[in-house]
């Protein structure tokens, strides 16, 4: 049997690494909540948490403690099993996703041969938890929210998977570590700008971040599947959300930005690698928060249409182009050119699709007249 | 491998039996589909088990299992479509009420 960290047997080794991950996840999720509030505060020309601890640093801790000390309600009509197990189903898959995240060379829980497939497979399960929460709450907002969440997640999973495959085609492997290491020279974003953008958009949708937050949109469904959850059970969803935000930004940086690698060699040591990961992930997180502060929410039909009519064909095209270039051994720069062309196509298609033609008004009139 | 092949086969047999019971005993069309899924899973276990244990190249069985998964997915989609239509037109998802074919 191969020995892992500290020469322990694989079980113990796994436990130790997982416990480290648990600590990391808790700290990071709380930190992310704090950071998001601070950054959003700046976007809103205000300060954000300030009075709990120095610079409000203890804000998330206070929130967490308060949530633990908060009564945990279950509505009378709720379905007990689904309602109570919803948080588990949401949280555990996200936690499983940590297993393959590359933080630095040599530290991650496990290097899986099929790491990407594993990640995709595992994270697709958590949507069941959303539906459980939504259905189990016996609440109409929760129900609609859960359904929307499911529809959105399955729609954006395809562009997500396909653009991720586009990257793995370049390297010929599904092993995240190998993908990262193959980017020691040039990060993949250079070869795959289109895939990067599609992946980023799909990741936003998978994370239910704006503009894809219709399942939890306050102005429509008052918080979506979690309306009825209170106290610690609710905070599990919350924690999961931020943990997956963290995972997702690590993953994007690993796949497209080169993770812990950079073009100038590895002589600076593992600490520096960790720093690189953190910096790249932070940039992405800032970007995600920035998007949150700036864009309105899409409507469900636009959201689904965008996934199926624009992102899916484009990512299929990206795969075929990648295959063509690789099979016929064309210079890699073709990929870049095609990718940039694809980005333009994406922008053009987006603007065309989203800007409804004026004639849409006529149909709106017809509809409202038919209905009334 | 320390687990004997027969363990897998027994598991798959039990699973198949449960699925069979579900198909026969329940009347909701959707539950019958669920039971069919269980049976298919049992079958796929058999395929892979035999492939792993009995096929030196350990290959065809895996591919078969892959195709089983693929076809099962397609089957669920189609069957549910039919159930939905049945439901919409007959107001029921109960197979016994849908046993006449003249709709």
């Amino acid at each position: 049997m191969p020995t892992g960290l500290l020469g322990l047997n694989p079980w113990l080794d796994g436990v130790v690494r997982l416990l480290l991950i648990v600590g990391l996840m808790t700290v990071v999720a709380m930190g992310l909540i704090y950071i998001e509030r601070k950054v959003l505060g700046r976007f809103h020309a205000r300060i954000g948490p300030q009075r709990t601890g120095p610079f409000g640093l203890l804000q998330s801790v206070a929130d967490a403690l308060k949530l633990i000390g908060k009564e945990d309600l279950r509505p009378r009509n709720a379905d007990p099993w689904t309602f109570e197990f919803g948080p588990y189903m949401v949280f555990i898959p996200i936690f499983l996703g940590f297993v393959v995240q590359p933080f630095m060379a040599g530290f991650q829980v496990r290097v899986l041969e099929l790491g990407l497939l594993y990640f995709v497979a595992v994270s697709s399960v958590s949507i069941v938890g959303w539906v459980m929460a939504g259905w189990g709450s016996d609440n109409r907002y929760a129900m609609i929210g859960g359904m929307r969440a499911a529809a959105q997640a399955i729609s954006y999973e395809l562009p997500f998977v396909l653009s991720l495959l586009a990257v793995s085609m370049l390297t010929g492997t599904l092993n995240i570590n190998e993908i990262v290491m193959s980017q020691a020279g040039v990060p993949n974003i250079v070869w795959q700008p289109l895939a990067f953008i599609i992946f980023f958009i799909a990741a936003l949708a998978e994370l239910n971040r704006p503009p894809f937050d219709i399942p939890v949109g306050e102005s429509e469904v008052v918080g979506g599947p979690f309306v009825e959850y209170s106290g610690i059970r609710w905070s599990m969803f919350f924690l999961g959300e931020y943990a997956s935000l963290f995972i997702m930004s690590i993953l994007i940086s690993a796949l497209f930005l080169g993770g812990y690698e950079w073009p100038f060699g590895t002589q600076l040591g593992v600490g520096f690698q960790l720093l690189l990961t953190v910096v790249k992930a932070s940039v992405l997180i800032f970007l995600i928060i920035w998007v949150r502060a700036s864009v309105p929410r899409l409507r469900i039909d636009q959201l689904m249409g965008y996934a199926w009519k624009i992102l899916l064909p484009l990512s299929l095209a990206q795969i075929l182009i990648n295959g063509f270039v690789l099979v016929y051994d064309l210079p890699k720069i073709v990929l870049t050119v095609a990718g940039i062309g694809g980005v333009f196509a994406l922008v053009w298609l987006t603007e065309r699709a989203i800007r409804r033609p004026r004639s849409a008004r006529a149909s709106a009139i017809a509809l409202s007249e038919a209905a009334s | 491998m320390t687990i004997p092949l027969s363990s897998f086969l027994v598991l798959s047999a039990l699973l198949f039996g449960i699925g069979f019971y579900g198909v026969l005993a329940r009347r909701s069309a959707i539950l019958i589909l669920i039971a069919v899924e269980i049976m298919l899973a049992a079958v796929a276990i058999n395929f892979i088990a035999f492939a792993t244990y009995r096929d030196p190249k350990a290959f065809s069985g895996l591919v078969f299992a892959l195709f089983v998964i693929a076809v099962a997915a397609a089957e669920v989609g189609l069957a549910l479509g039919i159930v939905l239509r049945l439901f919409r037109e007959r107001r029921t998802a109960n197979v016994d009420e849908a046993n006449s074919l003249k709709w």
Partner: protein
Amino acid sequence: MVIESAHEFETQDLLLNVGPQHPSTHGVFRMVMQVDGEVVRDIIPYIGYLHRGAEKLCETMDYRQGIGFMDRTEYLAAMNAELSYVMAVEALAELEVPDRAQWIRMILVELNRLSSHLMFMGAFGIDVGVFGTPFIYAWREREAIIDLFEEISGDRMMYAYLRPGGLAWDVPTNFVARCRETLTAVRQGIADFDGLLTKNEIFVARTQGIGFISAADAIDFGMSGPSIRASGVPLDVRREEPYLKYNDVKWDVITHTDGDVYARYLCRLGEMRESVKIVEQCLDRLEPGAIMPEKMPRMLRTPPGEVYIRTEAPRGEFGVYLVSKGGNRPYRLKVRSACLSNLQALKHMSVGQYVADAIIVLGSIDIVLSEVDR
């Protein structure tokens, strides 16, 4: 075969209850939507959760005491509400308002229109789903206007500053300069909104072609304000039946012909620019002088009679129907609420749209519940 379970398979459209406590009903409005999938099939609005009898109470108050209630009736544009009320009293009591008071009133009313439209922008941005940002931008500028009002009248929202005949007291000496400062801030705010929303594809996609109402329907429903002007009816009391000094300044009635939510948004944005223009002209023409008529009775009494005064409030025509039977208090006071009429058209505008659209259609009407319910 006995169908034992048929009742379990009855299909029913989802009844979605929105309000009275819902983040996007702008107060205590409630509507029940009949939803099929995500499409709204029917809407029943319920109002009256804020019906608190301002009209009835005003009948027991003398004319000055009533001003406070007018403030609270239209709390987002209290100046406009006060203006209608005092104009009604003035019309009955035949008071002549001095020029300076009129100019100041006009400045204040337009500033209040600005702050009310800013509020709309913010709330509407939230409805469309931008996380907090528009609200924050709106309030940054609104706060400037509120500060100005506070310096003038002493209160942030309930100014109680207009009086039948003129103003309660004169504006501070640095008023003009402060006003110009505020206008600068507001211009920045308008620019921010313009940058944040107007061209944003998602915003456009969410609002264009949604909540259409034709000009004829809008007139039939008695809509007014930006809501009707967005349908192409240039109905603006300031232009049709000018009061104060609106004839003496240059400004345009903003109309759009699309009649959808986006047009209503653009109308308000345009109106904000017009208001800035108006205030600037007023500031230029403001001269020292009296703010009250020469001879004011100690206790204002009105002869018997009745009058229906309409002014253009930010949300539309704010009418005050005042019946007096003599004495120092109204016999009957009726507030014609623009929002009530606009809200009536909600069902017409949002049936057949998506749930999310129904919510932004509601947002685009820009209701103030205490004006609807009074």
